[in-house]
């Protein structure tokens, strides 16, 4: 994890410091929190911050829409393990953040959003660009508050960061009436022990005694399976997870946001589970006798019908958030703990297990079948059809599976999850919980700035791309090297797929007109290529990788390619639609 999560004591504590305006106190506080990059859009009520921004070592990325700023801050957080920051003005600016806040909330992403509001004397008077953003943000943030006094500013910002990153992380919104930013305060910045957060749930750290029970259950199990989620990466515990897998010889499946918990080439990596996960993984869930969920929510895209989920298993649920335990599935053992603490506690208790040959052979046999029946296994691309699995696979190969890959929502997201071949944590970013179309391009922008040492790719459908493509200009202005792969089927692909399978091919609003993306990029000054055949793929990927700044590839895909297998609404993991590609 990056060092961003620890405050820097640049300002020694004192009873009083030289007076400075609220806007400066905000910027000082950001610097103290280790913030280097902020994503924002100016407006009347936040101009006091922009007026002093130059005095601070803060790089400001001028986004083209506040939603882009929120997703970029989210992407920055996920790629670095730090806390991303977005700034917006009052009224429409603040409201435009909401989709990004909700996205971060659902996926437990730490983020601090700073909004301006009208001066205190005008609050509640329907002043120009006034809105009750705190009221709007309440259900989609971990915390939101309006800072009504300049003297509150230093504590408010420090507490916002602490709330955002502690326990189960999430987004925090701080709303500053303009005059609070303009008036002076002499209050110093607080040290961590001075924060006033009695209601903040912090996990008990250290040994986890319940690991005794879990170790016993593991010892008694014949067909155990770990289902690992985002919580493992939030806890920085992928090494511990891999070690537990080796020690206990238990295969590890992952959720969408658990991608990267395991190296997918690891013999103990079972793979991606759930609605469009691999059949062999879902079969394991249904056949295992012990299912250990670590840092996952057992959400509906994993379980399907809960009454038929993992029918043969004792179910264990480890989560740092007590309210998740027993929320969705029957739980035989619930453990409220940080995933890393639990895994470390397990390592202290687990003896080295013998290989579970029979169970792993079963996995291998199922895997062989499900891979052969997949699009990629079918080798449709060999017949000259440009299929999405081939494009994703080739991007994985070309980047040696080291790139940060940010996917959007829909078919492209599932293809990215299934075919890229991830090796490392923090390199797969996607809006898993909220399913926010338009996430990929702006989030990739944040990820590329947060982790510039890695190549960053956005994989996005032509629908999601058109939702936030205004950020192309941001990519150009700041020369942010995001490579955008548009999986262009001229369709809302997942809509088309549902209408084909569930709504008797009654297609409505699934066809999508889009601009000529290559000419669009030409207008922006972004190098772009188009590929329509499999044998063009490697070449255009190589071209895009050479670009010093942003680049785009418009992949014109087979229009009828569906994502299989598929779990239909209301169904369970045992009755999935698995259809061999035609």
């Amino acid at each position, binding site marked *: 994890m990056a060092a961003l999560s620890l405050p820097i004591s640049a300002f020694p504590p004192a009873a009083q410091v030289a007076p400075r305006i609220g806007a400066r106190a905000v910027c000082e506080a950001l610097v103290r929190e280790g913030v280097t990059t902020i994503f924002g859009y100016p407006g009347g009520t936040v101009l006091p911050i922009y007026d002093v921004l130059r005095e601070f070592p803060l790089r400001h990325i001028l986004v083209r829409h506040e939603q882009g700023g929120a997703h970029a801050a989210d992407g920055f957080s996920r790629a670095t393990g730090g806390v991303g920051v977005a700034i917006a003005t009052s009224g429409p600016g603040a409201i435009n953040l909401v989709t990004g806040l909700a996205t971060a909330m659902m996926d437990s992403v730490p983020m601090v959003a700073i909004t301006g509001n009208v001066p205190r004397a005008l609050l509640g008077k329907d002043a120009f660009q006034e809105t009750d953003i705190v009221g709007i943000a309440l259900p989609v943030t*971990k915390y939101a*508050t309006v800072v009504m006094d300049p003297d509150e500013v230093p504590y408010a910002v420090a507490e916002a960061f602490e709330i955002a990153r502690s326990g189960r992380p999430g987004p925090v919104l701080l709303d500053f009436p303009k005059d609070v930013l303009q008036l002076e305060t002499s209050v110093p910045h607080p040290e961590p022990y001075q924060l006033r957060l009695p209601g903040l749930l912090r996990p008990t750290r250290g040994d986890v005694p319940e690991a005794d029970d879990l170790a016993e259950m593991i010892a008694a199990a014949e067909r155990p399976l770990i289902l690992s989620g985002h919580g493992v990466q939030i806890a920085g515990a992928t090494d511990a997870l891999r070690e537990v897998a080796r020690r206990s010889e238990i295969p590890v499946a992952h959720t969408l946001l658990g991608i990267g918990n395991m190296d997918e080439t690891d013999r103990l990596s079972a793979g991606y589970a759930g609605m469009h996960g691999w059949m062999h993984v879902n079969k394991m869930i249904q056949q295992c006798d012990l299912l250990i969920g670590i840092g996952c929510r057992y959400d509906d895209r994993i379980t399907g019908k809960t009454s038929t989920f993992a029918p043969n298993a004792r179910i264990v649920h480890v989560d740092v958030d007590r309210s998740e335990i*027993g929320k*969705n599935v029957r739980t035989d053992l619930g453990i409220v703990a940080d995933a890393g603490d639990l895994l470390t506690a397990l390592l202290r208790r687990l003896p080295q297990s013998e290989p579970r040959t029979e169970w792993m052979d079963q996995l291998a046999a199922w895997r062989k079948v499900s891979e052969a029946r997949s699009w990629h296994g079918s080798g449709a691309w060999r017949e000259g059809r440009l299929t999405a699995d081939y494009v994703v696979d080739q991007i994985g190969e070309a980047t040696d599976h080291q790139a940060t890959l940010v996917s959007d929502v829909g078919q492209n997201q599932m293809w990215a999850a299934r075919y890229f071949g991830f090796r490392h944590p923090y390199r797969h970013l996607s809006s898993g919980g909220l399913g926010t179309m338009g996430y990929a391009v702006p989030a990739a922008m944040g990820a590329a700035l947060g982790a510039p040492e890695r190549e960053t790719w956005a994989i996005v459908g032509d629908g999601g791309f058109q939702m936030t493509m205004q950020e192309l200009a941001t990519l150009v202005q700041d020369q942010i090297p995001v490579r955008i792969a548009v999986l262009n089927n001229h369709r809302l692909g997942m809509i088309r797929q549902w209408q084909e399978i569930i709504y008797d091919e009654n297609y409505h609003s699934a066809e999508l007109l889009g601009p000529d993306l290559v000419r669009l990029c030409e207008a922006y000054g972004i190098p772009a290529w188009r590929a329509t055949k499999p044998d063009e793929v490697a070449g255009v990927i190589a071209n895009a990788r050479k670009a010093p700044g942003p680049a785009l590839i418009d992949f014109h895909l087979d229009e009828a390619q569906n994502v299989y297998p598929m779990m239909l609404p209301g169904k369970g993991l045992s009755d999935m639609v698995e259809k061999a590609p035609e």
Partner: protein
Amino acid sequence: MAAPQTLPAGETDAVHRRHVVSALVVDRPGTLNRVSGLLRARSFNIESLTVGTTHEPGKSRMTIAIRGDDGHLRQVLAQLERLIEVLEVTDLTSTPRIELELVLVELDPPRSPTAQHALRGVLAAAGGETLSEAADLWRARLTATPEIIDRALEALRAHGLRSLVRAGAVAMAADPETIPTNENGVTRA
């Protein structure tokens, strides 16, 4: 409302009943909004919700009376607990407790000594008394458990009940040995 999800083995979750929840919260603007918003998002209908200050500055106590399935509510209370403004949540439903509600009523003045005697009897049974006895209007208060209040209000309808204001329940966990013997304020779980 959707059926509750299954819960940790061995625990019943399908019991639908009235719950009394006590929450210690930070006394700040927005706290009530957060708490009620969470309950709304989960489609709970709040029977009553009272908020007041406590002996500690900066902290308020909420008493929430709410109907729901045990398991479903338990999960929601865990979600309540994780709100930054919420310091502590206790479900008092299965706990011996003192639970009282205050009601103010306006009544037609009784027309005969017999009626007056009967009215005073109803009030007394619900821990109440008259506050003013003008020729054209009586005002009274009741202080008792919500069940006793319900019964008393039903009885008061026969005595010319004109209007009423209910405060909602306030509750406090109590050691069964020390629960007051005055049955108006006692709820033994």
